[in-house]
């Protein structure tokens, strides 16, 4: 079943046309990877889904419902959470307050507790730093907090913009493992923008490759991993 569909979405920032007609289809319960070079429009695609950027034409459909005219906070309430590019944690809030804000739309106290524990198990350092200001964390710790905060929303669809940015290799593997588990156990659908195409395709079911605001290639992750062009452009020269 299709959970999210982008149909020919065009979006621009002033004179810069960042998306030139993007169509994407995300199945419920899937893990979908979004690849592309710097400036290809990956972040912009996520922003149009979460309502931060309004499409000039085309539309976003979620769970059979068009998202036109919805504000970001209405969209969150529909069950879409985003882990934004560049961490964007609340610097003046403590780590635990940051996590609490991730669960802003939720009312189930017990569930929130439980998820906070989960985050702390996943990232023990956050527990140690719970009363410290978010802004005092190291880059990677902030990235962990951003991911943790996204999980706290317990969304149906989680949009992740470069979750592995600045994380140590060991942790990257751990995080993707955790994401897979969440996907499996809770059925959370994941749409992941990732520069690390290897890791992304290894964990995803399906992938899209963007180029200058357009979908250049799409396919199951096996297909993409076999695609010469993709391998050359995004997976670098392997030694």
């Amino acid at each position: 079943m299709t959970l999210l569909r982008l149909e020919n979405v065009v979006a621009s920032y002033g004179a810069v046309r960042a998306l030139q007609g993007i169509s994407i289809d995300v199945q419920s319960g899937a893990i979908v990877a979004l690849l592309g070079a710097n400036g290809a429009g990956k972040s912009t695609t996520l922003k149009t889904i979460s309502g931060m950027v309004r499409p000039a034409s085309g539309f976003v459909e979620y769970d059979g419902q068009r998202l036109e005219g919805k504000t970001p906070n209405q969209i969150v309430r529909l069950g879409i959470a985003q882990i934004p590019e560049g961490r964007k944690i609340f610097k003046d809030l403590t780590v635990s307050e940051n996590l609490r804000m991730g669960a802003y739309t939720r009312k189930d106290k017990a569930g929130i507790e439980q998820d906070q524990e989960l985050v702390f198990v996943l990232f023990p350092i956050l527990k140690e730093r719970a009363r410290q200001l978010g802004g005092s964390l190291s880059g990677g710790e902030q990235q962990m907090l951003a991911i943790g905060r996204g999980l706290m929303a317990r969304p149906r669809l989680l949009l992740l913009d470069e979750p592995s940015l600045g994380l140590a290799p060991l942790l990257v593997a751990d995080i993707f493992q955790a994401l897979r588990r969440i996907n499996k156990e809770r059925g959370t659908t994941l749409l992941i923008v990732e520069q690390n195409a290897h890791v992304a395709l290894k964990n995803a079911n399906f992938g899209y490759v963007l180029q200058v605001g357009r979908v250049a290639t799409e396919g199951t992750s096996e297909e993409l991993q076999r695609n010469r062009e993709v391998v050359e452009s995004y997976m670098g020269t392997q030694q």
Partner: protein
Amino acid sequence: MTQLRCENITVSFGGVVACNNISLEVPTGKIVGLIGPNGAGKTTLFNVLSRFQDHDSGHIYYRDQDIDRKKPHQMVELGMARTFQNINLFGEQSTLDNILIGAHHLIGNPFADMFSLPAARRTERSLVQRANEIAEMLHMQDELDTLVKNLPYGYRKRVELARALASQPELILLDEPVAGCNDEETDELRGIVQRLNRELGITIFLVEHDMSMVMNVCDYIYVINFGSNLADGTPAEVQANADVISAYLGEEHDDAA
């Protein structure tokens, strides 16, 4: 000769000890890497070395000169430039202006400059010329007039590098230069870094979590964990070190690199 050396650096924030007795050295003309888990104290150490952060104890030497009391802005005059992990650019200004600010210490007498005296104008022209060359080297000559806040993430990292280069440094500290770049872009930057080192003789000290970068360009690598030295050696040695594997690389690392 050592370009940069630190001995027993300790830094703590309240209860958190970010650097605990770290010692290392960066030989002139080499590319040295610094790796370690998140929160190990890499950025803090960079801040100490570039004098943005005072250390509680220990010493830093730049070409064997004690620089424990230098101000951050004096470092470029010594020949040290750096980039930031969390991009720190002048978003409302163009790429060109961002690069030019890196060349700030080359403007000469500020009073002559302020009144646009002829000598100052000549200097300015040559600085702009150099900025253009740097942009070309980093393949971003078409973005010179673009406001930096409108550039995508990967490009902004490159502007950081360009700004550092504009100061004509002998040594550059790079904090995660390829974070947010895909493999092809990483390759390209790796090439650039190597060129800087080989052709311009710039010493490079870099922090990076991307092993394809670190293991391929570094002559020598230091590993720190919980603020302390964990290991050091050539890439091959480090990669084979069991402590490093269990604390940082993980078993699957060869898969990624």
